[in-house]
């Protein structure tokens, strides 16, 4: 469904992605792990063109999305994204955060959008929070709202960039639980994470990124039991 071919990205003289290849099939969950600064976020953001790749190809359902004529705003409606720092809209209620996209972009009626939002809030365990402002929520609650906001566009795939890294430990679980429920529903996902046990549990494949390339890609059991590359071994010895 999503396929990156030899994606490169340079920031001026700094080469951050040096030819990344990755395929995420329909209903697949690919967990991207690797040391800080290896280019995980940059790569993920290239998949929905929040960052413009310098070279290579990104295919979505077989169509090259890097084509200048490709309707990138429509693409983003089909591919949800969740950020490390939630990025909720602070000037809107939780409900409005979720209904903004459906009302403005999917042209849903306000009533239908609110019904959808209430359903999603119930799903992420925040049915009673629809009318509060985001600044009244804990980090874990914010992230769950952010997930609901992305889901409200009924995307075909979801991109997660370290969804639990900014959370206090006791809130990590509630967010991972929501992501787990998406896995069960068969959502296609690419998840950048530092939660190794979670990656092992939900990932169909692990992509280990290092120095701007995917140094290793394998099934979680293989990857965690016997990583092939020395860099992956070194990385795992530090984080496990």
């Amino acid at each position, binding site marked *: 469904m999503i396929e990156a071919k030899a994606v490169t990205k340079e920031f001026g003289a700094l080469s951050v992605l040096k030819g990344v290849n990755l395929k995420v099939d329909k209903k697949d969950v690919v967990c991207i792990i690797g040391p800080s600064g290896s280019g995980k976020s940059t790569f993920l953001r290239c998949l929905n063109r929040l960052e413009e790749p310098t070279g290579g190809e990104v295919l979505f359902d077989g169509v090259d999305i890097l084509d200048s004529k490709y309707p990138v705003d429509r693409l*983003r409606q089909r591919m949800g994204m969740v950020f490390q720092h939630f*990025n909720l*809209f602070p000037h809107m209620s939780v409900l409005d955060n979720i209904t903004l996209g459906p009302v*403005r*972009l999917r042209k849903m009626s306000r009533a239908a959008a609110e019904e959808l939002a209430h359903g999603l809030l119930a799903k992420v365990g925040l049915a009673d929070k629809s009318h509060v402002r985001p600044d009244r929520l804990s980090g874990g609650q914010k992230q769950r709202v*952010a997930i609901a906001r992305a889901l409200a*566009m009924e995307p075909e795939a979801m991109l997660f960039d370290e969804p639990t890294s900014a959370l206090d430990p006791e809130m990590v679980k509630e967010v991972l639980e929501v992501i787990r429920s998406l896995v069960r529903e068969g959502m296609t996902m690419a998840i950048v994470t530092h939660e190794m046990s979670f990656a092992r549990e939900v990932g169909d494949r692990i992509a280990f990124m290092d120095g701007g390339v995917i140094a290793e890609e394998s099934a979680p059991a293989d990857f965690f039991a016997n990583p092939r590359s020395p860099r992956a071994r070194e990385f795992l010895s530090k984080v496990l």
Partner: protein
Amino acid sequence: MTMEPILNYLPALLHGAWFTIFVTFLAMVLGSVLGAVLALMQISNSRVAKAIARSYTSLIRGLPLLIQILYIYFGLPLLLGVRIPAIVAGTIAMTLFTGAMLSEIFRAGIESVDRGQTEAGRSIGFTYWSTMRLIVFPQAVWRMIPALANQFSITLKDTSLLSVIGVAELTMSGQTIYSMNFDTVRVLTMVGIIYFLIFLIVERLSFALERRISR
């Protein structure tokens, strides 16, 4: 010489104050339109638009306001071939000046909104301008209130420069009185009090707005 009761000055001074408020208000309103256009040019993708907006702003900020006022007053009639009243020239000059200042305030306000907000908007599928309109601008506006109040007070005080081209605003009204009766200090004191009162009202208003928002 017998002193006149100071309240006798009040009608003439209030008349001047009315001109001052009128010009300040117009300059703020029209300047906001100009400032918004300039700010949008600065955040747009067009290099040309950016360059024009930036050059304009730095030119206005780099020249003494007095020179700008004189330039408009004497230069514009040459350009248009018609005489323009001092109050019109003065208002144009104050608008051009205030617009440049406001564009910087708008731009800074927009840039103060976290980049993550734009990214979240775009990731949902909003276009750049929809994201600006629905997500960034509403957040930026509230943060600009103190700076806007500040600009109002600057524009208010700088309208006194219009006295050099003969606009009968507050300062000029004062000068007219004390050039005849030499009651300079008392007249200036009254002029000062009126300026300060106008300022206080705007300051209170801005505080009240800020408080409402931070609730």
